[in-house]
Structure formats: structure tokens, C-alpha cells
């Protein structure tokens, strides 16, 4: 019968848990709570009008849709990259594999200025697209490209381990039952990968809506057109409109928390379904 004595066979429970809770409360919880307390200082009417101001609504829309598109692009190409890395041998694979981590390790400001320079009218890629009438810098397309850069490792690194551990048996069974390769992929492999693909997408999406550094250079920050929500918060802060900034932040935090819960739920369900070796 496991009593509390058996649970504490190892020392340090009180100390480690206590310190953990203390640290998290001090650094994370209390400051985050300050956002919500600050919004309580506004009346409901004030809060509502701040949150539903057209410029603010536009910024949510822009942040949300650009992150969504970037997440979808990353889901497709991230799956492709993970597939190629896991299943096909080719020279230079190690190097390519480490390329995937670059967006995760690179400071966002550096990514921001690099991407802006490349896609500006005079840039390497921008000058090629300009004659075709495709503008990238200072448009939502530019924001999407920046978010694709940022979100790529989230999809690839989430899918890779699962793809690696996928059993051959299900695909072999499909072959024996007469399915061609393409059908096997769409009907057998892809459904198996769906939960992990969803998780990767959700991670990239969550990262995308809050992203600031890599977007703020390429977007041009035009209100109602390319102004993302984090930038609007920054602008309000610079104007000392703390109440406004906090109101927007509260909405974004709520969305982030919900996303985080969904992601952790997905990951938990996935780990429950996995049959331990």
C-alpha cells in the first residue's frame, strides 16, 4: 500500500516544489495577474470600447490571419521537410537538419532586418518579384513570410520524432491489401500524423500571433493594414496609454492561454494513445 512515506523515498520534495512554485509565482504569475487587475480599473464600457475600436479589431484580424496562413504553410512544408529528413537518405542531410533550428536560435530582430532587406524592392528576392507586381515588404504577405520563418521549427521538430517512430506494419498491411503508395499516404499515414501535425500547427500559430521582432521591420506597421496587435500595444505604451495597451494585452493573453491549454491537451492525448515499447 503506497502511503505518503513511500512517495517521499527521495529527499528534496518540499524544497524543490516550494522553490519552483515561489519562482513561478514571482516571475510569471504575479506580473501576468497585474494585466488583469489593471483592466479591472477600467469600467466595462471603457474596456469594451477600447477592445472593439476599429484599429484594434483590425490588428487582431491581421495578427490572426497572417499567423493562420503561416501556420498552414508551415504545416504543409514542415511535414514535407520532416518526411524528407526522416525517410530519404541524401548527402548533406545533417546540415539541412540543423538549418531547421536556425529560426529557433536566431534573435528575432536579426531575422526581421534580414527578411526586410531581402524582400524590399531592391532586395535579392524583392527585385525579382517587383516586375511581376508582387509586393512583399510592407504588406501582409511580408508578415506571413516572416511568420513562416519563425514557425518552421515548431512543425518540423514536433512531427519528426513521431514520424521516426511510425511503424512500418500499417503501411505494409496497406500494400498487401492492394493500395498504391499515394493512397497509402493519404489514407493510412496522414491520419496517423494528424494529431502531431495539429500540435505543430498550434504551436506555430500561437508563436505567430504574439511575434514582434521579426515582423515589425517587414510590415511597415501601417494601422488597419499591416499593424499587428503586439505593435499596437507597443505604440499605446509609447503614448502612455497604459489602459489601452493593457486591455489589448488582456485579450491576447486570454487567447494565448486557451491555445496553450489546447496544445497541452493534444500532447497529453497523444502520449496516452502511444503504446509504450
Amino acid at each position, binding site marked *: 500500500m503506497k502511503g505518503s512515506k513511500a*512517495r517521499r523515498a*527521495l*529527499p528534496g520534495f518540499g524544497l*524543490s516544489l516550494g*522553490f*519552483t*512554485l515561489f*519562482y*513561478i509565482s514571482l*516571475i*510569471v*504569475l504575479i*506580473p*501576468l495577474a*497585474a*494585466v488583469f487587475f489593471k483592466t479591472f480599473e477600467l469600467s466595462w464600457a471603457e474596456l469594451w470600447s477600447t477592445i472593439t475600436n476599429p484599429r484594434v479589431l483590425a490588428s487582431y484580424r491581421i495578427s490572426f490571419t497572417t499567423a493562420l496562413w503561416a501556420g498552414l504553410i508551415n504545416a504543409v512544408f514542415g511535414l514535407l521537410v520532416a*518526411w*524528407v529528413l526522416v525517410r530519404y537518405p*541524401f548527402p548533406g*542531410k545533417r546540415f*539541412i*537538419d540543423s*538549418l531547421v533550428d*536556425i*529560426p*529557433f*536560435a*536566431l*534573435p*528575432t*530582430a*536579426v*531575422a526581421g*532586418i*534580414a*527578411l526586410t532587406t531581402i524582400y524590399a524592392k531592391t532586395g*535579392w528576392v524583392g527585385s525579382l518579384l517587383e516586375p511581376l507586381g508582387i509586393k512583399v515588404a510592407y504588406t501582409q504577405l511580408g508578415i506571413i513570410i516572416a511568420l513562416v*520563418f519563425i514557425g*518552421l521549427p*515548431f512543425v518540423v*521538430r514536433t512531427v519528426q520524432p513521431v514520424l521516426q517512430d511510425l511503424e512500418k506494419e500499417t503501411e505494409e498491411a496497406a*500494400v498487401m491489401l492492394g493500395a498504391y*503508395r499515394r493512397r497509402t499516404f493519404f489514407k493510412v499515414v496522414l491520419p496517423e500524423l494528424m494529431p502531431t501535425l495539429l500540435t505543430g500547427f498550434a504551436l506555430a500559430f500561437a*508563436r505567430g500571433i*504574439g511575434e*514582434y521582432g521579426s515582423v515589425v521591420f517587414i510590415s511597415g506597421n501601417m494601422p488597419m493594414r499591416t499593424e499587428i496587435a*503586439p505593435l499596437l*500595444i507597443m505604440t499605446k*505604451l509609447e503614448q502612455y496609454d*497604459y489602459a489601452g*495597451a*493593457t486591455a489589448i494585452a488582456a485579450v491576447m*493573453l486570454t487567447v*494565448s492561454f486557451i491555445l*496553450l491549454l489546447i496544445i*497541452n491537451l493534444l*500532447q*497529453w492525448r*497523444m*502520449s496516452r494513445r502511444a503504446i509504450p515499447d
Partner: protein
Amino acid sequence: MAGAITVYGNKETAQRPKHITEPKYVQWILIAIALLFLGLVVLLPLVSVFVEGFRKGADLYFKGLTEPDTLSALKLTLIVAAIAVPLNTVFGVAAAWAISKFQFKGKNFLITLIDLPFAVSPVIAGLIYVLMFGAQGYFGPWLDDRGIQIVFAVPGIVLATIFVTVPFVARELIPLMQAQGVQQEEAAASLGAKGGSIFWRVTLPNIKWGLIYGIILCNARAMGEFGAVSVVSGHIRGQTNTLPLHVEILYNEYQFSASFAVASLLVMLAVITLIVKGIVEWKSGASHAGNH
């Protein structure tokens, strides 16, 4: 599963049996698309940093790097990392120890709490400290009376950086230590080892590589953090500018090659981070091979 980015061992791919893989030409098309995508999205920006940095010649490149404002930005970045990383490492180890070696209610909730900073926009991360310690903040007047400056000064930058990098070491260690279980530690305890010994001599050697990797990632993010620090710092040149902020200032002043020169420093930091990651994977792969 707390970690989305874990040490991923790069296993050599043997050629799959022909009946459950794609025809060769399909493989090569897919590889080409993947390479094109990665080259365009990742490699191109990387290379452009160095090309733009050297655009006005090597002389100006090095001049940009050794300018006084750049040097003080570098110093501040290093100081902030030197404070934030050890603190978060201690936290990560403590949290992983509590979570992986013991059973208690609310464990999943705690793991989600630790992941919180990952889900929060960097700008909001800075905002919360301004709300707490700024002139109009909750503690503002209290701090003012004592002449303590947190926001628009170094302490604020340190706090914001700590917030943003809190999860890194913990997320590395938690799945690792959970997978390792409690057997070795319990064996040591039953042989009479005290807490400190158990940790230093049994646990630490086992988590060595995961710990190093977590610290490296934490450091890379701490030195490269931009959004949160941007809100808290006040952008005072020579005093409250970190390297990433300095890059932004130079860029906004149209000093493009200087901006890219400083940016290239940060790129090199990222590359070193990844090289260390490669070494860690190789070493931990080697030790796993020994166990099979």
C-alpha cells in the same frame, strides 16, 4: 510531454524496402522542394546578414563592431545573460526534480504553468513589468521613494529576459528526467546517500547533456530577446541597449551595414548554439549506443 523541442538524435536512414516507399523520382522531387523551401526561407536570410554587413567593406564592418555603443550593448547583453541563465537553470533543475521524481496532484497544471512564457507575446512580457514597476505601476511610487529604478534600467531588462527564458531548461530536463525514472536515485537512497550526494553523483551525470543543451538554448534566447526588452528598456543608448536593440536602432537610422555587422555577431552566436547542440546530440547518441 512538456518539451516540444527536445534533443533529437539524427539516426542514419537505411533505405526503406521498396514496397513501402515512394519511387525514386518522387523522392528526388520532394527532396528538391524541401531544399528549395529551406534555402529560400532559412539560408537566404542567414547569408544576407553577412553580405550586407560587409557591403561597405571589411574595414567598416570591424569599425561597426568596435564602436563604443556596440561594445556597451555587448556588455549589457552578456551581463543580462549571466544573471538570467543561471537563475533559470536552478529553477529548471528544481522543477524537473520535483516533477519527475515525485507523485503529486496538479502536476500537469504545473507543467502548463511553466510553459506559460512560451505562449505570451514578448511585448506583453515587457508590459507586465512596466505595469508592476513603472512610474505609474503598482510598485512605482514605492520604488521611487527609495530611488530604485527598475523599468528603463538594467534590472527591468534582466527581469523581462528571465521571464521569457524561464521554460527553456525546465522543458529540456522534465521529459528527460521523467524518462530516466527514479530507480537509480532510490537505489542510492537505500544505500544511505543523502540528498545532495544523490543529486550530484547519480542524477547530474545522467542529465548532463540535456542540461547543457537547455542552458545553451536559454542563453541564445536570453542574448537575442528583443520584444520584451524593447518595452522595458527605454532604448537609452550606451546604457540600456542590448545587442538586438542596438541592431534595431542602427537600422532605423539607416546605418544598414553597421546594423548588419552587429547582427552578424548574433548570427554567429546562433550558429555556435547549433554546433554545440550537434555535439550534445552526438555525445548523447554515443552514450545511448553504449546502453543497447
